[in-house]
C-alpha cells in the first residue's frame, strides 16, 4: 500500500481532508439534517456519532452520494462534491464500506476485488494488487470462492479489502463493528490503524462507543441534524450536552 494515495488530496498537502458546510436535508416533513457542519482533519481517524435519529446516517449518505442535499456543500480536494453520484465520488478518491456487507455473492472473491474501477494499471498489475490486499486480510485461500459462500466476517474483510484497491485517500466506514465478533473487530481495527499510519484519513460512523472512544482521534457528535459537539474522546465523554443527547433529557415536570 502506498503511503501517498492517488486521489486529489495526495497532490496537495492540505491540513483539511473534508469540509462539510451547512448541509441540509429533509424527507417529507422531517428535517433529518438541519445545517450540519464539521471539518475532517487530514490523516486522522474521526468518528461521527449521535443517538438514533440524530441525522448521522443521513449525513453519511450525503457524503457518499446516496442522497442529494437540499443545500450545503461538501468540499474535498478543492471541489464541492455535494450532490455527486456515488461513482463520481469514488472517482475522486473517496471509498466507503457498508453497514451490512454488500459483497458480490455470485462472483468470486478475486472478481470482487477486480470489479473496482479507476485502476489505471494493466490486468496483471491489478491482479497483483488484489492478491496483496487479499493476503493482508487472510483471504488468499478463498480467492476462487463465491463471495456469497464466505462467512459474514470474511465478507466484511473482503468488502474492506475491496475498498482499498484504488489506494484511496479518504475512507468512510459505515458501522464497521456492526454484527462482528470481538476477534474480527480487533482485526478490522488493526487494519484501520495501519491505514492511519500510512497517512489515510478515516471517518467512522458508529454506535459502538468503545470503538469510537478508544480508536478515534476526533469525534463529531450530531443530534437532531446538527453538530452539537466535537473534540477528542476525553472531552466528548465528559461533555454534558453529549451525555444529554444519548441519555435523554428529563421533562421539567415529572408526570407520575
Amino acid at each position, binding site marked *: 500500500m502506498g503511503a501517498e494515495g492517488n486521489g486529489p488530496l495526495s497532490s496537495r498537502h492540505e491540513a483539511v481532508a473534508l469540509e462539510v458546510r451547512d448541509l441540509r436535508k429533509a424527507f417529507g416533513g422531517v428535517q433529518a439534517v438541519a445545517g450540519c457542519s464539521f471539518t475532517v482533519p487530514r490523516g486522522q481517524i474521526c468518528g461521527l456519532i449521535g443517538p438514533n435519529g440524530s441525522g448521522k446516517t443521513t449525513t453519511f449518505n450525503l457524503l*457518499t*452520494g*446516496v442522497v442529494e442535499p437540499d443545500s450545503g456543500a461538501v468540499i474535498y480536494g478543492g471541489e464541492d462534491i455535494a450532490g455527486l*453520484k*456515488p*461513482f463520481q465520488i*469514488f*472517482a475522486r478518491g473517496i*471509498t*466507503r464500506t*457498508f453497514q451490512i456487507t*454488500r*459483497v*458480490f*455473492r*455470485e*462472483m*468470486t472473491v*478475486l*472478481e470482487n476485488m*477486480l*470489479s*473496482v*474501477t*479507476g485502476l489505471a494499471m494493466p*490486468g496483471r498489475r*491489478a491482479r497483483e494488487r488484489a492478491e496483496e490486499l487479499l493476503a493482508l486480510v487472510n483471504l488468499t485461500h478463498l480467492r*476462487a*470462492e*463465491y463471495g456469497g459462500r464466505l462467512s459474514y466476517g470474511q465478507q466484511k474483510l473482503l468488502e474492506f479489502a*475491496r475498498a482499498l484497491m*484504488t489506494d484511496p485517500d479518504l475512507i468512510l466506514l459505515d458501522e464497521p463493528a456492526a454484527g462482528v465478533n470481538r476477534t474480527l473487530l480487533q482485526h478490522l481495527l488493526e487494519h484501520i490503524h495501519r491505514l492511519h499510519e500510512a497517512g489515510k484519513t478515516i471517518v467512522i460512523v458508529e454506535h459502538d462507543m468503545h470503538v469510537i472512544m478508544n480508536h478515534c482521534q476526533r469525534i463529531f457528535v450530531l443530534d437532531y441534524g446538527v453538530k452539537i459537539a466535537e473534540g477528542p474522546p476525553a472531552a466528548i465523554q465528559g461533555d454534558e450536552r453529549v451525555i444529554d443527547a444519548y441519555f435523554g433529557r428529563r421533562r421539567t415536570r415529572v408526570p407520575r
Partner: protein
Amino acid sequence: MGRTEHLRNVALVVAAAVILAVIPGSLTLYLRSFVLFTMMYVVLALSWNIISGFTGYTSFGHVAFYGIGAYACAILVTDYRWPWLATLLVAAAVAAVVAVVIGYPVLRLKGPYFAIAMLGTAEGTRVIATVWDGLTHGGLGISLPSAETSMPTYYAMLALMLVTIVVAYVVGHSRFGIRLNAIREDEVAAGALGIDATRYKLAAFVLSAVFPAVAGGIQAYKVLYIDPPGVFFVQITIAMALMSMLGGKGTVIGPIVGAVLLYAAQEATWVNFPTAHLIAYGLFIVLVARFLPRGLIGFAIDRGWARKGMVH
C-alpha cells in the same frame, strides 16, 4: 484464465468454424437449414445473455431487435434494391439506435418491471410493423427476391455466430464483464466502486441488440418472406431466454450449449409431436427453473467440473 486456456478456447472455436464451413455442401437442404438456425439461436442466446445473464436485466422482448433487423433488411432489399450484405450493417445500426433510445428510460426499471417493459416494446414494435404499412407492407408481409442457393445466408450466419462468440467471450473475460456482473449482483455497491451503472447497462443493452438484428436480417433473406406475427414471435424471446438459462446464464459456454441442445430437442419433438411441442416447452421451463437454476454449466461448476468465476 491463463494463456493456455485462452488458446485452447480459440482452437476449439476455430475447429468448430472450420467444420461448419466445410459441411454445408454435403448436407441436405433440411439439415443445412437446421444448422443455420442452430447457429442463429446461438447468436440470439449469447446476445440475450449479455444484458440478461451478465447484467441481470432480464429482457422478455428481445425479439423486437430481431424483428427490426428482419424488416430493415427486407425493406431495403425489396423496395430499394440494396445489396443484401449492406442491409445487414444498416440493421445493426438501426438496432443500436433503437436500443439507445429505448434503453435510457427502460433500464431505469428494476427486475420484473424491466422484463415487462421489454415485452411491451416487442409487442409495440410488432404493432408498428403491422400498422405502418407504407413502410413495412403491414399485414401483407414482404416477399424478398429469391436467391440461387441458400449458401450465402449459411455463411453469413456462420460469420455472425463467430463474431458474436468472440464478442461474448471478450465481454465475459474482461473487466467490462466483471462490472456488468457487479451491476447484476448489487447495483448500489457497484456504484460505490465507481461503476457508472447507466453507461455500462446501456452499452450492454446495445451490444445485446445488434447481433439479433443482423440475425433477423439474415433469416429474412433465407426464409424469403416475413410478416409481423412471423417475425415478432414471442416464442423467439422465450427460446433465447430458455436456451441461455438452460446452458447457464452469465457464462459464455452456457448459452451456446443451451442453444444447441434446445434447438435440437425442439426440432425433434416438433417434427414428431407437433402439438406436444408447446407443452414440452412449458414443462421444460418449469423443470429448468426448479432443478437447474444455474443451468448446465452452473451444475458443472457446483460439481467441481468447471471453475467458478470468469476471471482467474
